């Protein structure tokens, strides 16, 4: 086999390897869902972000419209400051509200956006004013027990 033959075979080998990598990236992973357009950043402050993680999806009506870019603590108000990166194709009114919801019963948490009715839209750098924090299980249990105690107290009267 001459030099040409070897080079052809090696080229085939490298091509097969590259195809395998491309297959893995496109068909087996989530490269195809990368936004080809740009994104714009919007901020939101929550009292408790619960189990929200960076790169969690931002959904509206169940459709993914963006990702959580970063999470930090706002030292002025001691609230969690979440930066959402929204796809430029989707614009929301200025009075959109953001909630932290859980996918399924025990799934990962994500941010759900509910659009309001304002004429003006959220621009890059704006802050979402109306937010609802994540449900904290301990507070829920405490609330339930308190209600139960109050009920039995009422019944005794």
């Amino acid at each position, binding site marked *: 086999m001459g030099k040409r033959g070897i080079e052809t075979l090696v080229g085939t*080998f490298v091509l097969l390897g590259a195809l*395998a990598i491309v297959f893995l990236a496109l068909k087996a992973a989530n490269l195809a869902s990368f936004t080809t357009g740009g994104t714009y950043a919007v901020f939101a402050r929550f009292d408790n972000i619960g189990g929200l993680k960076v790169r969690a999806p931002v959904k509206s009506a169940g459709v993914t419209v963006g990702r959580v870019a970063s999470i930090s603590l706002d030292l002025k108000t001691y609230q969690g400051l979440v930066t959402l990166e929204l796809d430029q194709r989707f614009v929301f009114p200025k009075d959109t509200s953001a909630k932290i919801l859980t996918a399924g019963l025990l799934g990962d948490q994500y941010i759900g956006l509910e659009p309001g009715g304002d004429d003006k839209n959220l621009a890059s750098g704006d802050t979402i004013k109306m937010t609802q924090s994540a449900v904290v299980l301990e507070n829920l249990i405490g609330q339930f027990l308190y209600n139960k105690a109050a009920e039995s107290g009422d019944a005794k009267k």
Partner: protein
Amino acid sequence: MTLPEIPQRVGAVSLAVLRRLGHNATFFVELMQSLPAALRRFYLVTAQIHAIGNYSLVIIVASGMAVGFVLGLQGYYTLSRYGAAESLGLLVALSLVRELGPVVTALLYAGRAGTSLTAEIGLMKAGEQLAAMEMMAIDPRQRVLAPRFVGGIIAMPLLAAMFSAVGIFGGYVVGVLLIGIDAGQFWSQMQNGVDVFDDVGNGIVKSVVFGVACTFVALYQGYEAQATPDGVAQATTRTVVISSLAVLMLDFVLTALMFSSL
């Protein structure tokens, strides 16, 4: 061994290990120094990719298919106990891309390509070809070792990616075609759960590291083999053992580095 000889033996063995480690390190540095020369004569590297990569294709693809089949079967049995059989695609893909692809490919590579490298270089040494090269003022590191090193580093990630891809296909064949899981669920769960950079990217980084390790061990054992047929045979065995151990331990370190912060 009498009692006073034991600390003596322990000391001697420790010093020998340290000396070996140092020799390995200097060999590695000299190999790095000869890399630019190998890149200049790329036709040598191409010939080595052919010898290492093309000839390993059969075993890698066949093993990948088999591992994919087994993952599909075992994954289905375990997941269906918890009613999560639709996540089979995700299980197969993550297992292959993160761990099994790089590691099993590296072990097979060490067995097939590593031993062939060691034997080739060991026989060159036994037949005094390396000494003859040095006589002609040709650096055997540049001509013989460095092209094989570069060829191995290029071939390994490609082989690992092919292993993972064929394995996913094997899991698809067993899970969807044979067992009857929904094809849409199979692929969509996989696409949602496997991240390009965190999973596929890290897997490729792992396979490059394993390629460096296995190829280096093979070249070192071949170059330092005793110049006898028996010496070459022992060097070949050592290549497989040391490469396999190195790959498995490196895998633990890399996994801890890459995936523990998720």
